[in-house]
């Protein structure tokens, strides 16, 4: 991740010209330098699949992948994603709507209930499996520690990640 460095005398509301790749497509946009990535996604770009929860990086609802790493979009100023590749929940399914193995597994193994944490959980699980294709239960729990869920008690989420890891159709 490269951080854009606005001029030293810049004010937080000054706009910066931001270039990044979002869900596979290049985006160029003028944005106030201190705007949070979560607001850019939800408010400016209409990508409301990324949810906003606690606003302080604790709940993980706003988890997105920045150059493949899980980041909470509520803590990132937009300058943090200059020239980076950002993947949100909207960017996972194939062009024909085909779900990824992680998404499929979450629908089949009790990975969600109310669904508010699900986009974040799915993004985090996607990052985990990219890094470690066959994690054991402890590694899954450790990796997902920043993605809170009040509904499932986590068993369904762990089972979903295990099922996704075992899914041979996983691309």
């Amino acid at each position: 991740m490269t951080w854009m460095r606005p001029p030293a005398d810049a004010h937080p509301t000054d706009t910066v010209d931001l270039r990044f790749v979002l869900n596979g497509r290049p985006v160029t946009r003028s944005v106030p330098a201190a705007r949070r990535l979560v607001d850019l996604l939800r408010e400016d770009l209409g990508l409301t699949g990324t949810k906003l929860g606690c606003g302080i990086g604790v709940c993980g609802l706003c988890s997105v992948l920045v150059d493949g790493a899980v980041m909470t979009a509520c803590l990132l100023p937009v300058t943090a994603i200059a020239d980076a590749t950002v993947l949100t929940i909207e960017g996972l399914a194939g062009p024909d709507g085909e779900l990824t193995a992680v998404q499929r597994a979450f629908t089949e193994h009790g990975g969600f209930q109310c669904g508010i944490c699900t986009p974040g959980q799915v993004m985090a699980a996607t990052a985990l499996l990219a890094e470690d294709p066959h994690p054991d239960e402890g590694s899954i729990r450790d990796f997902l520690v920043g993605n809170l869920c009040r509904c499932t008690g986590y068993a369904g989420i762990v089972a979903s990640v295990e099922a996704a890891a075992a899914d041979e159709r996983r691309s």
Partner: protein
Amino acid sequence: MSAPTAAEALGPEVLERLARPEARVEARGKVTGAAVYADDRVVEGLLHARFLGSPIPHGRIRSIDTARARAMPGVRAVLTGADTEGRRFGRRLLDRPILAWDRVLFVGDRLAAVAADTPEIAEAAAAEIEVDLEELPPVLDVRAALAADAPVLHPDAASYVYLGGERKPPSHPNIQGRLAAIHGAGEDPEALAAVFSSAAHVFEHVFRTPREHAGYLEPQATIVWVDEAGVAHVWTTNKTPYNLRDQMAAAFGEPKERFEIEGGAIGGDFGGKGYTVNEYACLLLARATGRPVKAVASPAEEFGAMNVRHASEMRLRTAVDADGRLLAHAADLLFDGGAYAGAKPLPHLSLAGGVNTLAAYRVPHVRIEARTVYTNTVPAGHVRSPGEVQALFAGESQLDIIARALGVDPLEFRVRNAVRPGEAGAAGDHFREVRAVEVLEAVRSELWDRPRVAGRGRGVALGVRHVGPGGLTLRLRLSSDGRIQVPTGIPDQGAGAATVIRRVLAATASVDEARISVVRTSTADSPQDQGVGGSRVTHLAGRAAQLLGEALSEWLDERLPAAVPTVGPGAHLHDDRLVDGATGETLATFDELAARLVEPGTPVELTVRYEAPAHGHGEPADYGFAATAVEVEVDRETGAVRLTDALLVADVGTVINPVAHRGQLEGGFAMGVGSALIEELTIDGGAVTSLSLADARLPASTDVPPLRIVQLPTTIGPGAFGSKMAG
């Protein structure tokens, strides 16, 4: 030979359908980000609301100056209590001002509302409002509130609107509500005292529990707009939309038809979203500006000013005879209701589970009182099994203390005193089926009898919960293309209500699930419903869906000769096809039947209503018994508790959604881990000080151990196919 279980009596097709993991109605939307929650909704011309809350727990308002806020560019309206015409809101007792006009009763009590072009401007404007408050002595705990000379927090309570008939004045003006369970010598204080004085052992303890937030991760969010006819459209996170409509109509003194409650997915509830607080001020702002207005609770508002779990102070006196049997129980449970009682949905304004100290045990002489009390703290409301969590903690903790004092194994002590068939529980419940001992014996074989590990301790608790009563109306629309639509006003906060309806309807009528869509509508477009809560939905919606499936089959039966002239006796739907009664041969597909019997563009509509049989006082009703047992290791240096084993034994009916059912049990256990080991809303001088998720904390994936679940399926359950509630 034992009687067949309800599930066995269902026949192979239904059994096979229910054994399949369910496909959740809303699954795709939730894993792709397409599901729309309240804060996701895009509305043209939207204004954003922010509120100014009181900085002190108790005070008189001398003046409010909004001039500077009004003058700020981008500010469209600033309202204070003077603009609310003295209106109050609530679920039963309308005691909470939309905006305070004379006094503030807790830190966070709303003094002013701002609507502006952006949330940032609204926030900045709220900070520019100047308030002059005269501090009054605050009442910060339940004992102080019940003192004879305590300041009366609601001197005009008798004039408040109460949606529950006639409200009897409480015995002390600071009491919100009272619920009691009294039987045996408990009816007569002197007789009860005599039982205690002649008992072999008497134990008296006081237990306290703190406030907790429900912990739903989606903040409360509301959008209100007013249409050309003057109808207020309320898109909100409330899980009881029809009740909200009625409450809004009562608060504004306007007909119900002027309020339509809508909404999409709800991001968690756990009891907390039955009472939402933004709708009223947003409507006033929408009317003042002529534009749609949205409010999303900030974390500080969520933790500091939304309906939290009642803190409690519970004094339990329990008498035991020489054989270690519970003889008498006198319990005084005081629940800190905070500044307003408006979050309480039951007419008694107390907590239904507040008398459940020893609900699964036999006690001959009982006097339990659960009172909710006004204080100058955050208003408390419903959080998962309201009152029951606190009462059960006290009762089960005391049983452990008693067992230890008597030198009896805690599991053995529970088995000895657990309610047996034909007996009533201490809270006065009469059970249609009693399974307390079975549940405890399963704990014994699954965990208790295992070899003990040095340095690890064990604990067990037994509880019982009712299956929610009531009635529910459902309807379907069958189109000529074979689609079956079930519009409903029941929100789905994640527990799977829509999927229950779809699966039960499909299994009953023997049609393909994929042709059924369960769609949430506004309150104007579906029949009245009580909403989600009180363990009612699987029971009632399931039974209504079953009636709907039967109604669909009957409707088809009557018209079969018209659709299939060659039809013989016994022809019926099977797996989405009409089959011959004798040969099982396919006579028509469901699509063909629909095409022949339904006019294109004129769907057939069928409506059913299910009313659960009412149980009079003393009549047996349906319950689920459950026990949780854990093994823990305590770090001797830090005191940190680590769960090394966790077991839940649950008395369950036929399971409709097997994946969600398990998830409910696992999620409920995780919430219990949070309550027992992790969570607390801290409070200082009346103000909640844990104002973020970092402070309030919720269990994370590493805090919750894998839960072993033992299900004891029952032969009866009042829901569809013999189902009960879960979690």
